[in-house]
C-alpha cells in the first residue's frame, strides 16, 4: 500500500497541532480555535493568494483573525506553511517566546492584534479600502466571532464596508453560538446574522462551517459574483468541534488539558484521521 500524499491543511491534523500546542503551553482557548479550523483550512488551501509564499509577501491577500482567541488554529496553518517551526509551537507560552495567546500583529503573517474584541474588522476594511484605492487586486478575508458582534465597531465597520462597496472584502462569521459567559442568544440576542448582513449591504451565504466543500463552494460563488457589494459568509460552527467532549462545551474556552484529557483528545483525533483516510 502506497502512502497517500500528505493533504495540506487536513482539519484533524490541524486540530492535533492545536492540542499539542495547548498541552505544551498549558493554555486555554482550545474550543474557539476548533470552531474555525475548516474555515482557515479552506482559505489557506484554496483561496488566499499568498504571493511569493512568505508571510511578508507584499502583494498577498490579507487574512484578519478578528476573533483573536482562535489564534492557535491560525498558528497550526502557519506551521503547515512553514512560517512557524515545530520548535515555535513546542515552546508555546514559554518565557521570552514570540507566540502569544491571542492574535498579535508582531508575528509575521498575523495581520492584527486582537483579543480585545472588535478591532480586526476595522483594520480589515481599511486594508480592503486601500487595496481598491491602490488597485492592487488584494482581497481581505476577516474572521469575526458571533460573540464579537456584541462590539460596536463591528457594526461601524459593516456600515463602512457597505457604503464603500468593498467587494474585495469577505467577512466570515464564526457562528458557534457561544461567547465567553454563555450562549450568544442568551447574553445579547443576535437574531438572524445573515439578514442583518444583507441589510448592511453584503452578499451573504450561510453554510456549515465544518463542511470544507460547502465553504469552498460559497467562497468561489462569492468571488465570482459580479457585484460591488462586500461579501459575507455565516458559518454555522460548533465550538470545540472535532473532539467529542469539547463539542459545544464552553468549559473548553477556559480549561487546560490534563494528561488524561490530552490523551483522550489525541486518541479521538488520530482515530478520526484514520477513519477519514480509509474512506
Amino acid at each position: 500500500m502506497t502512502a497517500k500524499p500528505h493533504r495540506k491543511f487536513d482539519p484533524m491534523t490541524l486540530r492535533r497541532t492545536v492540542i499539542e500546542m495547548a498541552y505544551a503551553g498549558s493554555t486555554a482557548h482550545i474550543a474557539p480555535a476548533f470552531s474555525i479550523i475548516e474555515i482557515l483550512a479552506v482559505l489557506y488551501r484554496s483561496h488566499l493568494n499568498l504571493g511569493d509564499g512568505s508571510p511578508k509577501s507584499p502583494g498577498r491577500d490579507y487574512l484578519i483573525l478578528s476573533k483573536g482567541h482562535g489564534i492557535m488554529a491560525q498558528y497550526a496553518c502557519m506551521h503547515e506553511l512553514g512560517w512557524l517551526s515545530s520548535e515555535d509551537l513546542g515552546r508555546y507560552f514559554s518565557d521570552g517566546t514570540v507566540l502569544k495567546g491571542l492574535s498579535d500583529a508582531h508575528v509575521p503573517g498575523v495581520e492584527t492584534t486582537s483579543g480585545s474584541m472588535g478591532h480586526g474588522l476595522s483594520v480589515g476594511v481599511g486594508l480592503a479600502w486601500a487595496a481598491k484605492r491602490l488597485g492592487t487586486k488584494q482581497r481581505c478575508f476577516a474572521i469575526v466571532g458571533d460573540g464579537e458582534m456584541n462590539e460596536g465597531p463591528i457594526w461601524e465597520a459593516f456600515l463602512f464596508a457597505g457604503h464603500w462597496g468593498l467587494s474585495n472584502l469577505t467577512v466570515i462569521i464564526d457562528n458557534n453560538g457561544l461567547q465567553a459567559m454563555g450562549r450568544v442568544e442568551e447574553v445579547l440576542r443576535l437574531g438572524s446574522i445573515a439578514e442583518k448582513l444583507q441589510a448592511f449591504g453584503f452578499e451573504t451565504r450561510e453554510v456549515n462551517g465544518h463542511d470544507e466543500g460547502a465553504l469552498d463552494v460559497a467562497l468561489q460563488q462569492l468571488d465570482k459574483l459580479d457585484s460591488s457589494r462586500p461579501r459575507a459568509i455565516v458559518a454555522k460552527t460548533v465550538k470545540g468541534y472535532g473532539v467529542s467532549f469539547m463539542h459545544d462545551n464552553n468549559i473548553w474556552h477556559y480549561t487546560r488539558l490534563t494528561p488524561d484529557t490530552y490523551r483522550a483528545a489525541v486518541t479521538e483525533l488520530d482515530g478520526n484521521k484514520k477513519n477519514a483516510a480509509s474512506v
Partner: protein
Amino acid sequence: MRDAFSAALIKVAQQDERVLLLTGDHGYALFDEIRRLLPDRYLNVGVAEQNMVGVAAGLAKAGLRPILYGLSAFVPIRVLEQIKLDICYEELPVVMIGDGAGFVYGALGASHHCTEDISALRAIPNVRILSPADAHEMTRAMELAFALERPVYLRIGKCDIGAVHKGPINYDWGELIEMRPGDGGLGFIATGSMVAAALKEALRWKGSSVWSAPSVKPLNTDQVITICRSHRAVITLEEHSFYGGLGAAVAEISSTYTPCWIGRIGVQDRFAQYAGSYEYLRSEHGLDAAGISRQVDEFVERIGNASLRLSKSSRPGVLVPETK
C-alpha cells in the same frame, strides 16, 4: 493656527499622494480647501471614531499616510484603545489631530472638554505628542509629524489668541523654545495656549525665563535639567489636567536628575460644573491671568516656608546598600 494647519495639510497632501485625511464627521469649514483642491484625499468615515482608527491602521499598513482628525475629546480619548493596539503597537505612520483641546468648546460641557489627552497618551509607548502654541509652532509641528513616519498626536487647543512667535520658528522633537531669557528665581515652562499666559505672568517675576514646549513627548531631558538648575523653582503651565501632562513630565525629569521645586499649574482634578465661555472656564479653573498669579504667589510663599523647614542637614540620608 487652524489656517496654518489647513495650509500645512494641503501642502503635505500635494507633496505626497499617499496622504489621506480621515474625519469622523467633524471639521466643518476647516476642510473646505482640501475638499475643493483634493477631493479624493478626504474621507469622512461618519460618526464612527472607533472604526476610523482601525481603518487608518489598515490604510497605513497598506502604505498610505492617513491623518486622523477629531475633536480631542474623541481622538484620542474615545478611541484610546484603538490607538494603543491598532496604531501604536505596530508603530504605524498615522498622524492624529485632536482639535479643540482644553476648554475650547466652553459652553458645550464635559463631553467636549478635554483635559486628559496628554496624560492618557504619554503612558502609551510609540506615540509622540505635539502641542503647538501658535500658527508658527503649528507649521513646524506638521513638518515634524509627517517626516517621522510613526504615530504622532497633534493637540490643537485654543488657537485664536494670537501668535507668541514673531515669525516662522524651527524646533526639533523634544526641544524647549526659549521665549524669554532669564536666570532669576523662577523659570516658566508652558505648552499650547498657556505659553502666552506664561509670558504675561513672567513679567511679574524679575529675571524669570519662559520656555515653550511644543513637543511634550519626547521632552528634552538635558534641556529640562538645565532649566531646573538655572532657577530656584520651575512653574509649568498647561490647559490640561495637572496630573500626567507637561508638569508631570518636567517633575519626572527633575525628581530623577536634579531635584527642584516644580509648581504645576493646570486643571485641578475636577470637571467644569457650569456652562460658560472659554474665558469663563479658564478663570473658573484658575487659568486666567489673575488665577495664575494667585497660584504662583501661593507656590512661591509655600516653597519659601518649606525651604526653611527642610534644610539639608535635617534630612536623613544614608544611601549605602545593605551588605551581607
